[in-house]
């Protein structure tokens, strides 16, 4: 009733092809943006901003990057942690070695370095597919782990191999308080999400999807596999690299290679699979599921047990958290194999017909 497009006539191709063709969607997105930019900084506590929203935004960005590669171009990658690490360490080197380097520039340059490494490790994708490609990209993970642990130059000869940044500022404005950090991440996420959405709607995005659906057929109709696959790797690792740099600079502040271990590659892949492959929105759902749910469970379980007059030990909570989390992953994959984004679009579809489904 409220959510339907009846009466919204499109008289130009431009209007018909816009990201959100339905007026209600545009209003909802605008409201969401206003909420995120204005209401959240005003309302959220420091803990929410620093420990939940900032990591959620950064990992959403990384999942978005990976989704372009896995969801849109169909190339399974287990090297995401590596590309994040490259982004983080490259940005760090630009930041400390060049006096007066603006933060945004070093973050973007970190992304560019990740692009180069991403394309390099994407080259095998021209010959190998599927699980074999996943194994090949895993090599990127081991290579970067090795490089950042062993080559002292990358860590500015820090004795312990741990590096840190401090005193961040953007155009002279300091990035210290939780609100400032949140807004910086949010700005990056919104810009990159818009960029990604437009890319996947464009010719190149359709090439990626053609590649994903059937690469031989795509090649027959004139899509260059080299170009399509490598651009997907490039765009994906650029976004992932920037996310890695943000993770290191804004969230951790000090980090070592294990902050980007293979664990993160897997977690990001789970975010994409659970959130929904080939969906920008899905990246956010997936990140929320993987980042926020364990923390929520961790804090909710003692309260729940308290209601029944029980006391759970810290270890008990941690174990229960893992078990419930694992159970939920399996349950979601059974109920909705196409991810949370599919649930979302089903809900929207139903809402359009509501309250007269026939």
């Amino acid at each position, binding site marked *: 009733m409220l959510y339907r497009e009846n009466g919204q006539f499109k008289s130009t191709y431009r209007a018909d092809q816009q990201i959100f063709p339905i007026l209600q969607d545009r209003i909802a997105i605008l409201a969401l943006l206003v909420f995120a930019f204005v209401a959240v900084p005003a309302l959220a506590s420091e*803990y929410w901003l620093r420990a939940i929203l900032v990591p959620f935004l950064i990992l959403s960005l990384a999942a978005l990057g990976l989704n372009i590669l896995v969801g849109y171009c169909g190339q399974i990658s287990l090297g995401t942690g590596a590309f994040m690490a490259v982004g983080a360490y490259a940005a760090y080197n630009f930041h400390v070695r060049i006096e007066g380097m603006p933060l945004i520039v070093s973050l973007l340059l970190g992304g560019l370095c990740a692009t180069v490494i991403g394309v390099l490790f994407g080259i095998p994708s021209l010959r190998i597919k599927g699980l074999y490609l996943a194994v090949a990209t895993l090599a990127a993970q081991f290579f970067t782990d090795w490089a950042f642990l062993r080559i002292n130059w990358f860590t500015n000869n820090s004795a312990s191999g741990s590096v840190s940044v401090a005193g961040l500022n953007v155009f002279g404005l300091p990035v210290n308080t939780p609100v400032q950090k949140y807004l910086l991440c949010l700005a990056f996420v919104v810009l990159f999400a818009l960029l990604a959405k437009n890319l996947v709607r464009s010719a190149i995005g359709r090439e990626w999807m053609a590649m994903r659906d059937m690469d031989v057929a795509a090649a027959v109709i004139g899509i260059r596999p080299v170009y399509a696959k490598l651009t997907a790797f490039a765009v994906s690792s650029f976004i992932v690299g920037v996310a890695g740099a943000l993770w290191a600079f804004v969230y951790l502040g000090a*980090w070592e290679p294990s902050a980007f271990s293979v664990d993160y590659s897997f977690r990001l892949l789970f975010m994409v699979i659970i959130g929904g492959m080939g969906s920008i929105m899905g990246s956010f759902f997936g990140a929320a599921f993987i980042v926020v749910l364990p923390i929520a469970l961790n804090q909710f379980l003692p309260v729940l047990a308290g209601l029944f007059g029980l006391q759970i030990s810290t270890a008990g909570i941690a174990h229960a958290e893992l078990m419930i989390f694992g159970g939920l992953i399996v349950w979601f994959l059974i109920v909705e194999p196409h991810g949370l984004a599919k649930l979302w679009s089903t809900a929207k579809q139903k809402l359009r017909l509501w309250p007269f489904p026939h």
Partner: protein
Amino acid sequence: MKLKSLALAAAAAAALAGTAPAFAQDQFIPVLSYRTGAYAPNGTPWANGFVDYLKLVNARGGLNGVKLAWEECETGYDTARSVECYERLKSRGASFVQPLSTGATFAITEKAPADKIPVVTVGYGRSESADGSVFKWNFPIAGTYWVAADAILQAIGQKEGGLEKLKGKKIALVYHDSPYGKEPIPLLQERAKMLGFDLQLLPVTAPGVEQKATWLQIRQSRPDYTLLWGWGVMNSTALKEAQATGYAREKMYGVWWSGAEPDVKDVGDGAKGYNAVTMQHGAEPQSKLVKDVLEQLHGKGQGTGPKDEVGQVLYMRGAISAMIGVEGIRAAQERFGKGKVMTGEQVRWGLENLNLTQARLDGLGFAGVMRPISTSCTDHMGASWARIHTWDGKAWKFSSDWLQADEQIIKPLVKSTAAKYAADKKLTPRTPADCQS
């Protein structure tokens, strides 16, 4: 105003969390621990000791009447999760924080000055943070990895009949490939240059279950001594590999995180003769503290963890870590008002002016466990004493006298490394006037 908002926040958090027994009049202490994951066998006894000590303080009547409150947060030895725990518990007015992971210490070190929460790292963390003039908020009290490494070299020197006898010897360092494992390297390199021994660095990828290649290298190069800088499952694996390789365990020296019961228990007789440096204390089942815990907590069914683990090496480390933090609060109370809840800033002053005399330690139940510690504005470590203990197949037994790390070597190294950190971060070291505040 500050206290009021703090109290409000604490009350709100308590109301939200439901289970948390935190009241406005309690001194809140966050406990970052790991009872799950690859490092759980070592993290659990530490956490038990830490929490038991806090319970004991409350059972003894609190700190001048102020009760302690705490909440545990499971980190799984993961830096990102540790940061989340830190942020979560910080909002409740943390007195001090113990990250219990070198990686997390690095990350929290960057955040603590802004939050005004002292970071207490008893026997771990960054070695250069002993320099209080640069690291105002860090307290690696009772020893750093450089102290551990130097004490081990001195023990080896004693065995050989003098440090100068180390010339031309080969010493290998088998280390956890993380900031933790890399910490001793600068000191060992400095010492190698000075004493003329040959240092071989053998990194082991975390968590350290795969060490075949490392021990093959040891078999080939036959080092005279091997230092072990492992944590969790890496330690017992190293001992098993040493056994398989036929490398004499008597020639192996572990750091204090590689010399506890969980590390050698599974290896049993295979670990016989293995040495580890101790952060002053070893396994102390006879100490008064252990008796108090057994009587006042376990006797009433309030103990944390298994009863027979009370007094083991890591349990004692946890208890000592808690004691040092609590004594910091007590020292702060003596200056800022007894019977009041201290803020992080006040606790920082207390930790910086800590003076644990032997009489004080004896009174707390640590007689024979450790030596006096006194910190100052420039020295945030307070003591650099250590002993060596050896596994006899059933228990850890002390096998050396007290050893003191050579200040002539550690001091300049701390100064120069801290100065490099200050230069990188564009920090100005604290002035003498700042020390008075």
